[in-house]
């Protein structure tokens, strides 16, 4: 005899727990989500979980919020998604808010100030290593590498010369360029099929994407 309330409550508590005990943000959360909802409660299938991850990583916003909303919706509809999202954010919100009340006084302590000068160095290190990790995960084709190099060079140069150019523009411009490249490729493909010539194989073969699947179908 399962009533809907215990399920919602258990969903809420699960996400509260995950929100309260994962350090290091969304990616660290994935293993916990998997053990909680796929292995233990069996609310989400393994395949479905991978789909949820793929969507969460590809849409804007905090990955933790994306996965919580998606899993909550799958388990208990819109109410489930609201409860999961609130639960995953609540511990972080409460902890940080309390810290923010005392933070300035805490920093004013002489040795804490010294400690944070060291910590700032660690922040540079941690962000750089996160950046390197994401870079390593990129595709190795000309377009991707050229975009990454261009964005990096523009960003550092402009900020050194104190020209303000929002990161938002970089993201949107590159997205539009990616879309444009897709249209160009699509037109080229159309043309080559009109001329009854096989589409030229792209040199970037190790792509697990749909292009590869399409080539296989063509053969």
């Amino acid at each position: 005899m399962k009533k809907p309330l215990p399920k919602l409550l258990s969903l809420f508590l699960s996400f509260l727990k995950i929100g309260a005990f994962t350090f290091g943000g969304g990616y660290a959360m994935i293993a916990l989500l998997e053990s909680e909802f796929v292995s233990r409660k069996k609310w989400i299938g393994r395949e479905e979980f991978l789909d949820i991850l793929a969507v969460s990583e590809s849409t804007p916003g905090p990955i933790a919020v994306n996965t919580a909303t998606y899993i909550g919706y799958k388990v208990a509809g819109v109410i489930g998604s609201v409860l999961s999202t609130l639960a995953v954010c609540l511990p972080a919100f409460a902890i940080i808010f309390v810290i923010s009340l005392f933070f300035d006084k805490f920093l004013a302590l002489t040795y804490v100030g010294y400690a944070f000068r060291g910590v700032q160095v660690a922040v540079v290190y941690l962000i750089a290593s996160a950046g390197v990790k994401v870079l390593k995960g990129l595709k190795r084709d000309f377009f991707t590498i050229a975009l990454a190099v261009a964005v990096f060079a523009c960003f550092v140069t402009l900020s050194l010369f104190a020209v303000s150019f929002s990161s938002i523009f970089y993201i949107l411009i590159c997205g539009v360029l990616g879309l444009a490249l897709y249209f160009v490729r699509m037109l080229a493909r159309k043309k080559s099929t009109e001329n009854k010539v096989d589409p030229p194989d792209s040199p970037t073969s190790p792509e697990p994407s749909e292009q590869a699947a399409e080539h296989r179908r063509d053969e």
Partner: protein
Amino acid sequence: MFYLRLFLLFLEIGAVSFGGGYGMLSVIRDQVLSRGMLTEEQLMNFIAVAESTPGPIAINMATFIGASQGGFLGALLATLGVILPAFTIILLVAAILKNLLKYEGVQGFLGGVRPAVAALILATAVTMGIRTFFGLGNVYGECSFNYKGLIILGVLIAVGLGSKYLLKKKVSPILMILFSAVLGIVFYGLI
């Protein structure tokens, strides 16, 4: 008006931040610095706290910045702002656009966004590093060389790489932050 602007700012940040918390940092940084809401040092302190407390980094950052600007209401609005776009988009995908990622146009768009986000994260680290180690915001400012910071960076890199290749274990960000705090006290306070 003030609270509305804060909310809208974080709504905007939430809507364009691909790549999770770290991807969000570069967007948060240039919005917050260009509006003069925080200094680079304050921002870096916040990032360190966000990394060493539980919960999503993006939520931690939004709450912290919101609280610093407008107390409890500020924290609440900033956090809601950063959550709402993600929440709405995911609901749309889960309920209606189930095949969103299967559209080639979407893949094309993301194919452009991904390298941009990766480059932005690294570029953010580099510009923060230039400011931290050379005291230099831009070429018009005065350069002050922070050699102690560079030594600490060297130690952190050595520990990070050493542990990765010799012990085959990654040092967790929290341990790195704690270690750097000790180094900070030693180098700036005691030496």
